């Protein structure tokens, strides 16, 4: 980046109250009211519960991606890492007769497999200095090819007992007026804890601050004596482990290990994180914004029918929404930079 933004102007280091997050909250609220008044089915306790359930996996992936984006990189491989770890875990457990009720065993195996795959990314990006987009495009292709060629390409419906049971572990279940059960999955709590832990890590630890510094300006970070390479390596290994955990939980919630799943979801999650205010140029992004971004996208996705958009035009509607999201981000970034008086060229992003 050829321009310098004063740190004080950047809202990346604070958790609450950036204009973008307020905007997201308002957008979610207004949209909910619009959907609700056009169709009263929406005003039910089931709606937020369903929204959370459909968003949880994406939030887990998005939090990992956020760290990468803040460091100034991008990761295309994370959904493949996730399903690789999830599927491999199930294969390994069934092969060694570990059909237990334990949840820790699959979580640990998946995290380890994810971290191993992440370390391949780390080697290429931190070790050899490959551009992150190209490196992770390559590894995504390698991981997927390897998974389907060597690990397996069949659906596994009888996943280990613990994972199967977890799929229906509800924190709260309420009977709604229509007689169906509205369920809030127990996963909400670990996800919340993880989000808070990550926010704390990003803001309060040396590692987290180094990530922001690298994303702001890699060269400056290096000259300040930060170990850029090692930090980057740790980022990709950590994201690998997070993706692995997200992958095994995805398998658990689906109650089937499908090696073809998740491929192609990366672009939507990148869009959600960017909508959440993270800068693709690095140096800026918040956990709260990311969570709100995922929730907003899923709110719209889940309710396009209620919004009166015919089924066949849903993808176009999502595309248009993404476009509005990235365009409004860019416009507000430009304005912020102009106010800071730091725009040097005419076409600064």
């Amino acid at each position, binding site marked *: 980046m050829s321009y310098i933004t004063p740190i004080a102007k950047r809202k990346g280091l604070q958790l609450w109250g950036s204009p973008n997050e307020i905007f997201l909250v308002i957008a979610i609220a207004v949209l909910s009211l619009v959907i609700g008044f056009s169709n009263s089915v929406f005003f039910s306790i089931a709606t937020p519960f369903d929204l959370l359930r459909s968003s949880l996996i994406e939030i887990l992936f998005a939090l990992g991606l956020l760290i990468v984006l803040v460091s100034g990189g991008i990761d295309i491989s994370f959904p493949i890492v996730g399903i690789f770890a999830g599927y491999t875990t199930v294969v390994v457990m069934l092969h060694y007769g570990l059909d237990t009720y334990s949840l820790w065993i699959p979580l640990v195996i998946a995290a380890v497999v994810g971290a191993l795959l992440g370390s391949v990314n780390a080697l290429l990006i931190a070790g050899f200095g490959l551009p992150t987009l190209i490196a992770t*495009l390559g590894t995504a292709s390698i991981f997927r090819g390897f998974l389907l*060629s060597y690990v397996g390409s069949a659906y596994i419906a009888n996943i280990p007992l613990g994972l199967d049971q977890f799929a229906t572990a509800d924190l709260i279940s309420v009977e709604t007026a229509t007689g169906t059960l509205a369920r809030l999955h127990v996963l909400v709590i670990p996800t919340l804890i993880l989000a808070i832990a990550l926010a704390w890590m990003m803001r309060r630890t040396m590692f987290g601050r180094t990530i922001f510094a690298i994303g702001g300006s890699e060269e400056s970070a290096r000259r300040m004596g930060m170990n850029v390479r090692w930090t980057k390596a740790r980022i990709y290994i950590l994201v690998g482990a997070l993706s692995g955990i997200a992958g095994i939980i995805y398998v658990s919630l689906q109650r089937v290990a499908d090696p073809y799943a998740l491929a192609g979801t990366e*672009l939507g999650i*990148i869009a959600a994180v960017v909508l959440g205010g993270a800068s693709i140029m690095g140096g800026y992004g918040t956990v709260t914004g990311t969570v709100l971004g995922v929730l907003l996208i899923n709110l719209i996705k889940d309710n396009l029918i209620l919004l009166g958009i015919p089924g*066949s035009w849903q993808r176009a509607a999502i595309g248009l929404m993404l*476009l509005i999201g990235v365009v409004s981000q*860019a416009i507000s970034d430009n304005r912020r930079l102009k106010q800071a008086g730091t725009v040097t060229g005419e076409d600064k992003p």
Partner: protein
Amino acid sequence: MKDISRGLAQRLLSDRKLSQLIVVAIVVFAAFGILVPDVFLTPRNFVSMAFQIPEIALLALGVMLAMLTAGIDLSVVSMSNLAALSTAYLMVTQVTEGGGNVYLWIVIAIAIGIVVGLISGLANGAIIAGIGVTPILATLATLTLYNGIAVGIRNGQSITGLPPEFVAIGNGSLLGIPIPMVILLVAGAGVALYINKTGLGMQSLLVGANRDAATYSAIGVKKVLLLTYALSGGLSALAGLIIASRSASANPDYGSSYLLLAIVIVVLGGVNPYGGFGTVTGVIIATGVLQMVSSGFNALRFSQFYYQLAQGVVLVAVMVLNIYLDKQRLKAKREKAPKKP
């Protein structure tokens, strides 16, 4: 062809990449020639490769143009499908129902398809240059949007039963050369001329090499970017039309694996992912190399997942090798250089 002779004669870093690539091509060719000669070394195999190369090479050229300006175009496959679908829609509704002048309607439909590609590309350019959205995000959003429009037009269904006169284009040959290959060679020559001989083309390389410098050199960065992405859309549309013509159908979700393949080809072809450098020859040879790998794997009866694995390995290996060789060269240069007093 001039590129090759010059590359072998001069020892520029740029053209060294090209000679490396030719060596890779020969090695791949020899390997499959020895492993599966009875399937790989047949005229039929080469003809089928010559029919398959153009569509993917055209998409790769589109990505290359964006990458030269230090951007990227992720929406190429969506644009090609949208263009193909528009053309197919027009042909199916006008040619069969109207029954008028078939050739006229085919020409009109093709023109409309290409215009659709150019407009989609221009829209990308406007979002990137006009509003200042990062290329990767802009084209990520339009990838979904264009795909969504293509799905919406016909409710997600593919269009089949295109007129035989149109299908003949993609499956026919001109003087023994498949027509898609002729289209690729003409388009490739056009892109090469644009990059090397026109002012705007040269400026697009400068924008990629150093955007700030380009801005201060009074280069119309916005104009260059607009044209770059519009051309990328046009090339994608050509690819889409070839696909539609070859398969006699148009599908909104065709070729979802082509995006990665196109990027792999562009990088393998020696285009600098940070912008500023790349050759058309490199991209076309790289397409040939990957098509040989694909055909060879088919001959060996490997699954498509091995091919995906191979694509990734090739991409990563080429990047790592380039970085390693650049370092070695830099070292050698430093040792050779006389010590400054």
